[in-house]
């Protein structure tokens, strides 16, 4: 039996959760204030996942990059692989929030979507409306 203490990252409360594990299986979970903490602790000990937010290059936009996110948490171990995958993409302005950059990235079941709309402009720089 091994013990692991975790900090729940689901909300700003940041509960201290104690998990008892045996052969990689979760036995007992204590310290979570809600059910979301329970499922977080289970998943964190078996297959930790995170939402990835990063940038993708944009051509012809008011800004040269847009921010993107995975639509759901992806395995922690894949964060840098997904990041690398996205670094070779160049999108074309205009872009809207929710535009899909890549579907089911690396078979994680998560899509990568745009989180900042980017207006199309002739020259990049400070533009007054």
């Amino acid at each position: 039996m091994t013990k692991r203490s975790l900090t729940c990252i689901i909300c700003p409360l940041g509960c201290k959760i104690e998990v008892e594990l045996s052969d990689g299986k979760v036995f007992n979970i204590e310290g979570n204030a809600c059910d979301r903490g329970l499922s977080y602790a289970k998943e964190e000990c078996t297959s930790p996942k995170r939402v990835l937010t990063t940038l993708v290059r944009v051509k012809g936009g008011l800004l040269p990059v847009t921010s993107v996110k995975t639509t759901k948490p992806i395995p922690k171990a894949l964060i840098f692989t997904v990041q690398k995958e996205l670094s070779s993409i160049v999108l074309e302005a205009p872009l809207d929030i929710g535009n899909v950059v890549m579907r089911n990235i690396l078979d994680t079941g998560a899509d990568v979507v745009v989180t900042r709309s980017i207006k199309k402009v002739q020259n990049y720089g400070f533009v007054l409306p």
Partner: protein
Amino acid sequence: MKRRSADVIVIGGGPSGMAAAYSCREEGVGAVLLIEREGMLGGILPQCIHPGFGLLEMNEDLTGPEFADRLEKRVRDLGVEVLLGSFTAKLSYDIGHGTSVECISQRGIEVIEAPCLIYSTGCRERHAFEIGIVGDRPSGVLTAGTAQSLMDLHGLLPGKEIVVVGSGDIGLIMSRRFAIEGAHVKAVVEILPYPGGLTRNIAQCLEDFEIPLLLSHAVLEIRGKGRVESVVICKVDEMQVPISGTEREIKCDTVVIAAGLVPEVGLLEKAGVRIEPETGGPMVNEFLETSLPGVFACGNVLVVNDLVDHAVEQGKLCAKSVKSFIDGLLQRPTTWKKSIPGKDIRYVVPHLFSGERDNIFYTRVRTPKAKCGLLLKELSKEICIIGAKPSEMIRLNIKKDLLSEVKDNLTFEVHG
């Protein structure tokens, strides 16, 4: 010089300013004018590309730019007039006439008059010289917000080998962003014996990326010719005094300062608004009205918020107050009751209340406590708080029937 007028002027188009502006329209205020210095609305939000915004306000986990977009849509839909790329150079106040601001933009200089004004300019960042870092002055020393703007708005990685100074949420979140974009964060240096940010950010920003957190450490000196080459750090004692013999050098090419925020109160101060030393923001009553009648404040310029949701909440309250003010229905008591920060409490906002309505108070403890009570002294009422930390603002909604019992002062104290 062009002259014009509005029913209310909002200075600063960040989250609290946008919320204040569209809420004024919702409340039925006629001409609402929102003045923003940058070329787009959103304040700091468009560059905060991480998730965690809007859990309370929108019941959803959004990134900064998404949250800003939701607010901006309301601003546009509700017919707020927005002046972008417009710098407010002067704010003057005249009893009986209200406020007038001088606004500089490509349109020229405009003077805008309004019976009331909402001030939501946010904060600036504390820089290296304000936290006693000496040494060379090479390139590669940036505040966290500047680094964030370079990287997340303009797509430029500010460095490869980075030392972050300060473990507040901004420092922690930026450390993760650097790590994800391929920079090596060599250490986060914190002068206090405990981390400055939320516990969950220590877990998901530092532990996830194996970034060392050096508590009770200070940066003494930055070294480098042309570009940063290293920093000298050392341990500090309880009084934050460097312990000699513990100095060591960390090689790096960039130093990112995340050492706290300072409210941008310049214009308010010059107009004659009373500023509170503990928050660095204006003194306000329960309507979030400053010492000048008809001038209101919300968001980080009032009190540094951890959560954008609270900044939005303050913006909305300002809008309600503005509506009452314009209608002549703002009922101020003849004498205000005072909220006083007592033992181990840094501040309580708002500073004045009437006891005639429910009131939300924002407060912070001075030092971390595993479990403690927050004592409302004159009411002999104790509220249990688990895991009180200076980094986590405490929001209390105190009911009218309790507040009406207060005679003149209500002292907030940490107990146990």
